[in-house]
């Protein structure tokens, strides 16, 4: 596979597998039919086993039918298949026929299988080598053209001989390790999630790092947008429909992910579930998909008693932006839904291909850097691993990860134990996010400005505070600079303790940082979160959006020491 014919390609990461044929995801899609069958069978067995009591399975089917019909009526999407109504009506009729009759178990199991097949077909990705290559070329070509037109290469950019896109997107952290581990084990990448752009960005990063394509769960809503759907299908996405919360669907989804990992397919989860609405780094993660990695690892250990099974490696990744297109909408949703997130209905910033392209052009033609930090890899218990994939404890001794799944000398499945392990893992991932998060000047100016204003009005609750008229808010440069300096010193101290990371520019003089931060924070919003007026006062045009960018620094207790 030679992604770029040009000679300057030399310095980039070589693909770790020589041909796409060996890519796990290619193997998976080649055997798509067989794989779906396997998923259906396994999910079927699990559900049947969990619904042994009389009428239990029937009730499960009826609940599923009910919620599905409700969804079709109340929350239909463009991407939904045309025959959906018909399918569920048929299920309904068949269920009705069963009423009153005895010995219906066999028929119920048939219906269950029917539903599972439908769900799994829908979830399963449609990866095609040719389309992957094409999509990748488009992204690369399009992006570099746009970049070349507008950007001067910066000295010292990490991959400056690679794509020009690399000038704009810095990849830092444990890149070599992830490449090594992807050869000997199965990688599960878990990035933070701030923007719809993340999916494509990460897909591209994976390619730059020379890794085979990953599969990842992408919200079905994104497939409403044709151009995104095209890219995502090509990049190995499988579909996750957050509207469907019935247990049959969830089981199909989990089994799909679990088996794909067991097959050795590198995977990507956004463990926060959805984009961070508040702008904060995820503080609690969704445990469902993470739990499938846990199960997969235990299954691998059981199925490979002679220890030749693949180990699973969790790789936390943070993505840092100066600007998140969706910020104003996200933060409003956050404020509206705080405390009642469950009733929240998703809406999107760019629901058409046109808007999406417009955004991309805007994004890639103007200079707003993105940084992607690849964290240290760990095993499923959150122990760091070395480049050979060996888990290492805090005291520097090797650990056999299998031992965590052993009870009385044998590996056994213990759901409660694994749920607890998953919860633990998610806490460790969150800590790691904060540690590898790179602070930008733009994050810090937003934080400082918001805190100064917030403290002036600390008698108001947050909502009243956010309703203050923006025209009345000023900070004198002197005051701002003093507090900013304090905050910067705190950040540097945390950096020393390895509790966070900083962008290289943070070493610049304070004056430059403030200028740069204000110029960059939310730079393309029509109402800018921060500006400096002619009197050199700091002002805001949109307090909510400022709050959003400020939240990026949440979780370090900085406000306590300002």
């Amino acid at each position, binding site marked *: 596979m030679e992604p770029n014919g040009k000679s300057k390609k030399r310095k980039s990461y070589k693909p770790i597998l020589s041909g796409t044929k060996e890519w796990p995801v290619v193997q998976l899609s080649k055997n798509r039919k067989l794989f779906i069958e396997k998923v259906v069978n396994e999910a079927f067995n699990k559900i049947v086993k969990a619904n042994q009591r009389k009428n239990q399975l029937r009730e499960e089917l009826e609940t599923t039918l009910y919620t599905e019909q409700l969804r079709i009526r109340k929350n239909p999407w463009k991407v939904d298949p045309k025959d959906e109504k018909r399918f569920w009506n048929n299920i309904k009729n068949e269920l009705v026929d069963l009423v009153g009759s005895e010995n219906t178990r066999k028929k119920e199991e048939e219906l269950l299988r029917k539903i599972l097949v439908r769900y799994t077909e829908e979830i399963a990705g449609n990866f095609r080598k040719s389309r992957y290559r094409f999509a990748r070329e488009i992204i690369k070509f399009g992006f570099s053209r746009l970049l070349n037109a507008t950007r001067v290469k910066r000295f010292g950019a990490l991959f400056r001989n690679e794509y020009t896109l690399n000038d704009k997107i810095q990849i830092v952290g444990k890149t070599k390790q992830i490449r090594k581990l992807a050869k000997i084990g199965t990688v599960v990448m878990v990035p933070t999630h701030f923007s719809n752009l993340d999916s494509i960005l990460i897909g591209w990063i994976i390619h730059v790092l020379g890794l085979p394509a990953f599969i990842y769960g992408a919200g079905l809503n994104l497939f409403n947008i044709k151009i995104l759907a095209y890219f995502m299908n090509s990049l190995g996405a499988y579909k996750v429909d957050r509207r469907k919360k019935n247990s049959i669907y969830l089981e199909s989804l989990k089994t799909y992910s679990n088996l794909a990992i067991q097959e050795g397919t590198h995977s990507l989860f956004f463990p926060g579930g959805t984009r961070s609405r508040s702008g904060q780094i995820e503080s609690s993660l969704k445990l469902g998909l993470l739990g499938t990695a846990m199960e997969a690892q235990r299954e691998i250990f059981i199925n490979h008693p002679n220890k030749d099974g693949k180990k699973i490696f969790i790789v936390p990744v943070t993505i840092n932006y100066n600007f998140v297109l969706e910020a104003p909408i996200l933060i409003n949703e956050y404020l509206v839904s705080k405390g009642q997130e469950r009733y929240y209905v998703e809406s999107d910033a760019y629901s058409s291909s046109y808007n999406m392209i417009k955004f991309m052009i805007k994004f890639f033609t103007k200079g707003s850097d993105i940084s992607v930090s690849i964290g240290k890899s760990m095993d499923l218990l959150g122990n760091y691993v070395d480049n050979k994939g060996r888990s290492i*404890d805090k*005291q520097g*001794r090797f*650990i*056999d*990860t299998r*031992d965590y799944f052993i009870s009385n000398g044998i590996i056994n499945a213990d759901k*409660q*134990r694994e749920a*607890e392990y998953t919860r633990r893992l998610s806490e460790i991932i969150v800590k790691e996010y904060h540690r590898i998060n790179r602070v930008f000047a733009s994050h810090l100016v937003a934080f400082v400005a918001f805190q100064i204003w917030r403290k002036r009005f600390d008698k108001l609750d947050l909502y009243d505070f956010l309703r203050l008229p923006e025209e009345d808010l000023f900070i004198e440069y002197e005051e701002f600079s003093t507090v900013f300096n304090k905050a910067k010193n705190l950040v540097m101290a945390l950096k020393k303790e390895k509790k966070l990371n900083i962008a290289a520019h943070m070493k610049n003089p304070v004056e430059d940082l403030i200028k740069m931060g204000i110029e960059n924070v939310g730079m393309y919003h029509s109402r800018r979160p921060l500006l400096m007026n002619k009197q050199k006062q700091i002002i805001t045009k949109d307090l909510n959006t400022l709050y959003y960018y400020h939240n990026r620094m949440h979780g370090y207790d900085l406000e306590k020491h300002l």
Partner: protein
Amino acid sequence: MAMTSKNISKKPVGVIGAGSFGMAIANILAQNSEVLIYARDPEAIKKIAAHKVHRGQKVHVNITATGDLGYIANSCDVIFPIVPSSSFREMMQQLSPYLHPYHILIHGTKGLDINLPKGQSIDDVKTLNREQVRTMSEVIMDESVVVRVGCLAGPNLAKELAAGQPAATVVASHFNEVISEGERLLRNDLFQVYGNQDLIGIELAGVLKNIIAIASGVLSGLDYGENARGLLISRGMIEMIYLGKAMGGDIEAFIGLAGIGDLVATCSSKLSRNFTVGFRLAQGETLPEIIANMEEVAEGVNTIKIAKKIIDYHKVRAPITEALHEVLFEGLSVEKAVTLLMKYPYNVDIDFL
């Protein structure tokens, strides 16, 4: 001791620490399993090996003593560490190289550890935040690869257990398998076992009640009656809840066996070491005098020292603990402390539910 020879499990069960509570637990475990007990003191090992009396308790025939931590770790999957909190971390550091993630550790130590940067001691810091204060389960996880951790708590006065009186304990852990393993190993006709998932809450209940036990000893030493004790127990309970919540425990833990159950037992019993400290204080002895001739550690003293700095960090209302701190370390007389407490402006009885 009646030999109820229930299903003796294949691997022996480990106990680390041959103090009176460690011995009592070893004796209970020995009714169901072979027990390996670790003692630091060679004399104690000899005594236990001879199946004589140790710490006032007859040693069960199923108990074998050893001075080799590695041997315990290699022989046992389940280990009960029961050593004073002041030497717990050091013990874990020595044990840690032999431990694997398949081990289950259920500790029975009711004290706290502090984790400060090298070279700093508790006297160097004004306050202690949650990260600097570690419960024993956290020490286990700090120092080893073991995650399947649990604790024992409840009204378990070693002398009564040794006498074979009926009693019960709580086994707390985030893991159901740890709870059921603890139950399987400990349970017998005279010893009941309850499970609880709030590990931190249960640990804190066991730890914090020692403060109130010292106060209860003071009341008895001053010859006060049961009105005063009733007052102390209920207000003490509330103080425990405040502190416990600040440190991440749930209220529920404090109103169960490990909370109110243990509190009532320790506050009423002259058998308790912490009670004895308070009693002798009220009789006019000083803390160094008392400690000098106590056979085993009264955890409450150290707990008060740590709790005071937690109170100062979290700004929790905990007048009993603060008063005791002044008595123990700042030279306030017990009489003055009582007067001070009676003047404290309490007004609401229950405000935490």
